[in-house]
């Protein structure tokens, strides 16, 4: 299982798609669970969500053979974007849904999905040449 999670892309687009989907959706669920647990217990979820986001980025970068400097750049950007998008998203969603915990869980899931797919779009290798 762990060997599969930390494997690298072999250029098979179908496999890549399955891997990226599992990682991003999987981490969105884990983020939601962590956010729910921490907020329900009255604790701050900021740190644990940052750790989870960084792990997700490490796995995606490792899979697509990203370099160390791009890892740092993406982690910093994701951290800041996650922080701001999460806060702003939670405010926006909070206006529709009254429940504070549910609002944060939804915002976290959305932000994780957005960040995950953005990272994927940057890392994937586009084969644009025509046959």
């Amino acid at each position, binding site marked *: 299982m762990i060997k599969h999670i930390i494997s690298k892309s072999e250029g098979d687009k179908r496999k890549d798609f399955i891997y990226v989907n599992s990682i991003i959706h999987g981490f969105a669920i884990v983020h939601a669970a962590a956010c729910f647990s921490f907020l329900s217990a009255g604790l701050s979820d900021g740190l644990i969500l940052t750790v989870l986001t960084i792990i997700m980025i490490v796995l995606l970068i490792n899979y697509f053979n990203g370099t160390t*400097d791009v890892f*740092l750049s993406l982690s*910093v950007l994701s951290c800041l974007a996650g922080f701001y998008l999460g806060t702003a998203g939670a405010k926006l969603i909070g206006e529709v849904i009254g429940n504070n915990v549910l609002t944060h869980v939804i915002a976290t899931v959305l932000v994780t999905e957005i960040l995950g797919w953005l990272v994927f779009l940057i890392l994937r290798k586009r084969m644009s040449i025509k046959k």
Partner: protein
Amino acid sequence: MKNLSIRQFVEFSFLALLVLGFRLLIEELIPLFEENLNLTFGRFLIKLLSNYPLTLTILVLDIAGIYYFNKYLKRDNSWMNISLILVLCLIISLIAGLWQRLNFWINGAELVLFKDLYFTLTVFASFIFNLIIVSLIQVYNYYTTTQEKALNIEIGKKNKARYQYQQLKTQLNPHFLFNSLNVLDFLIHTDQEKASEFVRKLSSVYRYLLNKGDNTIVSLREEIDFVNLYVDLLKERFSDGLHVNVNVDEKYMALGIIPGGLQLLVENATKHNIVSIDSPLEINIFIDDNQLVVVNNLQPRINTIDSSGLGIKNIKGQYMLLIKKDITINKSKEFFEVRLPLI
């Protein structure tokens, strides 16, 4: 399967801790903006960036710094790059802080630096702004260079495939042309109409080989039409000694195949086997499991033409390059079978 190396693991873990520390620092420092300046971090940053000459200077220094680092530093020495970029961000942030506060200090006749909270918060805010700009530039650089690399690899593959096609083309047995000219000579004396048709087909065969040189893949329909012409020419020579049955459903005709691949297999079959009315050579071409199957009864010639199997090797090489799939060869006492994956 290549996995995460220990070196990478250590590097990523260390950097992850660094980012985590940075995240904690943000959490600690952001409330200070509201507590001391009655401004949120966002508003403070907007106010800082509304000093357009300063913002422009920050951007120019960031872009110039990254440009020169990428130009003169080795890409594989990522730690050196990261350290220098962080130092660059810090220096630019200090410049921004001095830009904002120097006049104030000169008037007060005291250089207080970090004792001045406004200076500290300005350095912090511009450091974050610098980090965002530098990270965006790095990500953009990475994206463009990797896409360019991927494109170059693809172009390289295409060129290699074209080269192999050229090799494949030269494999079209020179004996084929020689034999065809002999057949033509015979037809000119016996049946001029047939001779004319023979010439037309022969020219079509060579035209196909020349025209499809730029393509790495052709449709199955094109290749089968070409093989039918080729077989017609062979039949003038072998008459009823050669039976070629093409049984391919219409729905597969739009799928792809490498140009000359099918023709080479038919040519190989006639080259290595006895073809006579007494012992006819039967070649069946059909689709099975999304593969084009070419199977013939095995009746090897005694004085077989010397062959290094270069033609089959070229087909194999092209498939590996184009779709990373191998062709399948099955040989028994009775038959010889080659399976080409459809693209």
